């Protein structure tokens, strides 16, 4: 069982690293995180800070690639999901699934349609 827990934003960043596979580096991770957190905007700096934290927790590892011309001759820092990260992500995804199931039981299928769904109690 994984001991360290992850926050919501860390969960999103880990999902992006998982989805991107070998192409997971700053710019692509940020793009994927923005997609996942729509309509919220996310800064590149927040993604870096979270990746650093996840690396300290041992959930991801990173390495520098060869420099490329399209980046002004600079390297990319690639990230890879580690076993501990997979465990933590799985655990939090299971919790999210349980929340989704509960919400759907009360709100029905409309819960996933932003046009049809309305809060039951409005002020």
């Amino acid at each position, binding site marked *: 069982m994984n001991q360290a827990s992850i926050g919501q934003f860390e969960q999103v960043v880990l999902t992006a690293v998982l989805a991107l596979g070998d192409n997971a*580096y*700053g*710019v692509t991770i*940020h793009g994927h995180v923005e997609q996942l957190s729509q309509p919220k905007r996310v*800064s*590149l*700096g*927040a993604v*870096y*800070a979270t990746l*650093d*934290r996840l690396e*300290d927790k041992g959930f991801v590892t990173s390495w*520098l690639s060869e*420099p*490329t011309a*399209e*980046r*002004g001759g*600079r*390297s*990319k*820092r690639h990230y890879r999901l580690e076993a501990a990260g997979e465990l933590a992500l799985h655990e939090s995804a299971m919790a999210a699934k349980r929340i989704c199931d509960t919400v759907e039981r009360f709100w029905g299928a409309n819960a996933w349609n932003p046009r049809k769904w309305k809060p039951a109690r409005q002020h």
Partner: protein
Amino acid sequence: MEPKKVETGPPALIEAVVRLLTPPACREHVLGDLWERYKSPRQYLKDAMRTVPFVIVSRIRRTSSAPLLAFQALIVFATFAGPPLMPIRTAVSATVAAVAILALRQAYRVDAPSWPKGLAMDALTVSLGAVLFSILSVVLFSKLSVIGTRVDIWLVSALDCGAGAFVLLFCTKVLWATDVAGCPPLRRRVVYLAACAAWATVIAVPVSMFAGFAAGVLMENHIIGGPGVTPENVLFAQAVVAVMSFAPTAAVIGAMSLCAARPRLAFGVLQKTASAR
């Protein structure tokens, strides 16, 4: 007609500023990512402003130890809040400056500090920063000029506090030395501190005695006190008093710096003296 050069990267000046602000450990990939996202100078600047502060804070979190930072902040506050002449806001400014310097120095460090010179330089930078900010807080908020008023007594007091902070910060850094190149084991570091203390005493005691003797002679001849001090030479008298008051502290700093610059010499002479006895 020559085709117009297409801009593919950020302007060199803006990139140089961003490069300077980004901690060296993250520079390569952060600048590369910002370059890859480049669309216009305005967008690049906005992107950099929303990225670099996060990178600095994250780097500080990764490189600084919170308990050690808190302990060093406590040392600086205690040394600057100690003297009765010191207003509390100077101690607060000195502490804030010291914490900022300590954290940023760690975050922007390229190589591990050398033993023991690097540690002494760290302590010196932090204590000088603390002295400077404590002076600024008095000069800016009290609307007083530093020379020719009672503030000069306070100035010597600030330097004394800075010296005290230097000695204590150096000792803390030696005892808690982590990621220091060529750092000896703790037992040897304690012996090293004992050698530093011995040298500080050996040098500071005669200097202090000489300063006391010189003060007596100058007082006797009414150079620094009594009817001999006229409005014309009051500044000179104040400067002489200031130098003599600070002399023993300067001797301690000199001894510590010597031990930091030449640790083998500090140990060697001490061992020879001990074995000769």
